[in-house]
């Protein structure tokens, strides 16, 4: 593994750890913290052995963690847009690390793209927060749509996992 590959992998894990530390409020249950660490462990393992499914796993893990924080009623700290931006940076740096194993990339272009994506996603989340503030999300229809979405998402996750493989 070349040095840039290692560096981007390390940066990705450090960003994930930073997100986990920063967004673990005192009120959060041990399960939230555990999910965070398991996600980081999966990311690190995937980067070490070269399994590209780790990138999707980190996205799923942190969103699951966010769902758990909401379920236990703990406050979301830091702001959601910051967490989104950090999550995007984790995904981007991890995918850069995997891409570097198989082909050359222009570091300036990919880093610029990562930062832009993170900022755009952060702005989108902030705007959505303004739009949905005060909306009731506990209705039956929402739950039914949620279960349907869960089935679709589960199918997609299985498909992604099957198509992922070792890189490099």
């Amino acid at each position, binding site marked *: 593994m070349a040095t840039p590959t290692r560096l981007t992998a390390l940066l990705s894990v450090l960003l994930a750890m930073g997100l986990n530390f920063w967004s673990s409020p005192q009120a959060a249950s041990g399960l939230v913290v555990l999910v965070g660490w398991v996600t980081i462990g999966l990311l690190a393992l995937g980067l070490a052995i070269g399994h*590209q499914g780790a*990138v*999707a796993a*980190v*996205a*799923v893990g*942190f*969103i*699951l963690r*966010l*769902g758990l*924080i*909401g*379920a236990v009623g703990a406050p*979301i700290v830091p702001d*959601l847009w910051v*967490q*989104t931006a950090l*999550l*995007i940076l984790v*995904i*981007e740096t*991890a*995918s850069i690390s*995997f*891409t570097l194993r198989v*082909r*050359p*990339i*222009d570091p300036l*272009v*990919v880093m610029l*793209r990562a930062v832009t*994506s993170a900022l*755009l*996603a*952060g702005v*989108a*989340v902030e705007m*959505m*927060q303004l739009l*949905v503030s005060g*909306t009731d*999300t506990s209705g039956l229809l*929402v*739950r039914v*749509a*949620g*279960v349907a*979405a*869960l*089935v*679709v*998402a*589960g199918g*997609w*996750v299985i498909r*992604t996992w099957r*198509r*992922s493989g070792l890189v490099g």
Partner: protein
Amino acid sequence: MKVTPSIRLRAYITGGLVGLAIGLAAGSPAPVMVGTALLVIAVVGIAGGRSQVVTAEVIEWPQSMIEGEKRTVRIRLTTEGRAGRTYLDLSASEGLVVDSAQGCRVLSDNRLTVPSVDGTRDLLLAVDTSGWGRHHVGPIVTYTESPLGMFDSRNRSGERRSWVVIPEETALRRLLAPIETNLHAGDLVSKSRGPGSEFADLRGFRQGDDPRNINWRVSSRAEGLWVNERHPERNGDVLLLVDAQLESGTELRALVDRSVRLAAALLQSHARHRHRLGLVTLDGLCRWVGPGTGELHRRRLLEQLLGVVPGEVVWDAVERTVVRAAKRPSMVIALTPLLDPNMGGLLNAVRRSGVDVSVIEIDASGELPEAQREDRALGRRIWRLDRDRLRDRLSAVGIPNALWDPADSPEVPLHQLELWRMSWRRQLG
């Protein structure tokens, strides 16, 4: 040729769907918002377009080049539509470096990046090489990203284009001249008699002699007619025997490198004197090219010489092959570190067949690690004595040998060999 969704696109879609599902199932808006943001990025990326396949081909490359020289390689990129950022992996040989480029940017490890390709685009690369031998570029692997980096395409195209890199030319002013000459016109004075400019002797006129050869001054003072006999100018056959053997586990590649560099210098210098040149290389194989002249022949010799891959030769039939290749009136110059005990036997066999053999010994002592322990120092001393004995044995059968120290010019051992030959002739009277 393969177009695949990128790792990040898969991650965004997976994260986005899971976010929607968890958020809706748990009635929590936060995962839904994060998931939606991820899906928005994925959708924008997909809408940005898929990647085009780019084909790369080397259309201009040098036929040969001298080590350290910069030459141009032209690569043509073609695509059916407009392709986004493209990365090229040249699959170049070790030692070949892209120094600068026009139409693209050079990344590390001979990899290039082009911002976009629209139809056809030519890239001009200034390449530099370190080390002699055969160098190549291609087949080139192109990686093209879609405009927003959500799809990757990979294409391996073009053929491998290779060329020979000749060691930096060393002009040798002093060369070892062949003692025997062949029948081709050249610069050497032959020992035989025939039409030429060098006076050899006088003899009585015989029927059929050219009247222009009558020496009137002598004929006027003696009885009958006397004619001048002359030595014709001929050239010689020079056969280089390059020992590129490398025992596995040793790091003595520098010896092979020096042998090859000296052989290349000798080939080029002897070619200027119009000698017929031949070459036998002993690397993993025993390969030979018989004596010949001309630019094409010289190129063949250089290609064989620079294509040596250091290794251990299988000695079965080597002696027979070399003796067959080195026929009289060839002069054989062996470039060898004399590390293989079989080499002494081979040289002896060639000499016994009546061929003039000289040995330039590539000094290996500088490449060996210093003997720290007493037993190793003793072993090294015995090894040196053994080598001295081998040199003496070679000298005793009429094979002059000279040790070439890396600090000296290559002309030094050639001069030593010439001196040895002169003293040998004197001894023989």
